[in-house]
C-alpha cells in the first residue's frame, strides 16, 4: 500500500477571515474555493507542496448533525476547544515574528518543550489552535 495524508479539514466561521489568515499570514496558496456565503469549502496548502492540503470547511455541514450538536460545535469553536492542527517549519523564530506582526492571537511564544521539541502556537480566526513546531 502507498497511502499519503492528502487533506485534513478545519472549520471556519468566517470564510474570508480564515482565507486571509492561511493565505496572507501563513503564505499558503489557494487550491480551490467553492460554495458561497458561509457554505464555502476552501482548499489551501503550502506553496511547492501539493501533496498535503487543508480544507477550510463550514462546521457541522452534514445534514445529520442536529441543531443541538451544531450549537455545541460552534460554542466549542468560540471557546477554542474544537479544531487544531500541527504545522512545522525549519525557521520557527522568523515564522513567529511574521505571524505575530499581524493581529493574530498568540497562544504561546516559541518555547523549548521538555519532550524535545520547540514550538509556538496561535489561534486562527475561527478559534482553531495552530501549533507550529520547529524542524531540526
Amino acid at each position, binding site marked *: 500500500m502507498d497511502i499519503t495524508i492528502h487533506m485534513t479539514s478545519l472549520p471556519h466561521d468566517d470564510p474570508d477571515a480564515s482565507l486571509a489568515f492561511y493565505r496572507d499570514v501563513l503564505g499558503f496558496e489557494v487550491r480551490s474555493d467553492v460554495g458561497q456565503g458561509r457554505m464555502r469549502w476552501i482548499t489551501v496548502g503550502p506553496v511547492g507542496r501539493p501533496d498535503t492540503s487543508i480544507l477550510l470547511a463550514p462546521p457541522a455541514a452534514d445534514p445529520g448533525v442536529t441543531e443541538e450538536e451544531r450549537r455545541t460545535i460552534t460554542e466549542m469553536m*468560540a*471557546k*477554542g476547544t474544537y479544531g487544531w492542527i500541527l504545522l512545522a517549519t525549519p525557521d520557527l523564530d522568523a515564522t513567529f515574528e511574521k505571524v505575530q506582526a499581524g493581529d493574530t492571537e*498568540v497562544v*504561546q511564544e516559541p518555547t523549548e*518543550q*521538555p*519532550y524535545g521539541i520547540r514550538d509556538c502556537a496561535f489561534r486562527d480566526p475561527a*478559534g482553531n489552535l495552530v501549533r507550529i513546531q520547529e524542524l531540526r
Partner: protein
Amino acid sequence: MCQAEWRRARVQAQRLADLARLRRVRDRIDREYAQPLNVEALARDVNMSAGHLSRQFRAAYGESPYAYLMTRRIERAAALLRRGDLSVTEVCFMVGCASLGTFTTRFTELVGMSPGAFRRRAAAMAADPADGAHAAHDAASAPLTVEGMPACVAKQVTRPVRNREATTGERPLA
C-alpha cells in the same frame, strides 16, 4: 425570520462573542503565565468585572481563571524541574509564582508529590529509568518517561489534569 427566531439568533451570537472573549483570556494565561497576572487585570482587559469573569470562565472551562493559571504554572514547573539544573525556588519564580508556599501546596495537590520530591524522582529516573519507573509504578503523576512519544501526546500526558488532583491515599469522608 420571525421575531422569536431573530431574538434567539441574537442571543446565540452574543454567547459566541462572550465565549471568544473567554478564549482570549485563557490564551493570554497560556502565553503570559510567567507574568504576575491576576484575575482583576485579566478581567479589565476584556471589560468584565473579576467576579463575572471568574463565573463565566468556570462555566465554560470547568475551573476558575486562577485555577487554570496555577495549573499552567505547575505544568511548566514540572517541565523545568525535570531538567534537573534548577532549584525548586528558581522554578517557582520562573513560572510566575510569588509565593513558594502556594506553589508547593498546589504542586503537591496536582502532581501528588512535593516539587522537591518530584525533582529528586526525575533525577533518579534520568540516572536509571528502570529503577525510577518501578518506584513510581503506582503514581500516575510521577515524572513520566516521554522519550520516543510524539510531542503532542507527551504534552497531554504530562499536563496536570484540572480538577483531578492526584490521590494521596484515603481521604476522610467528612
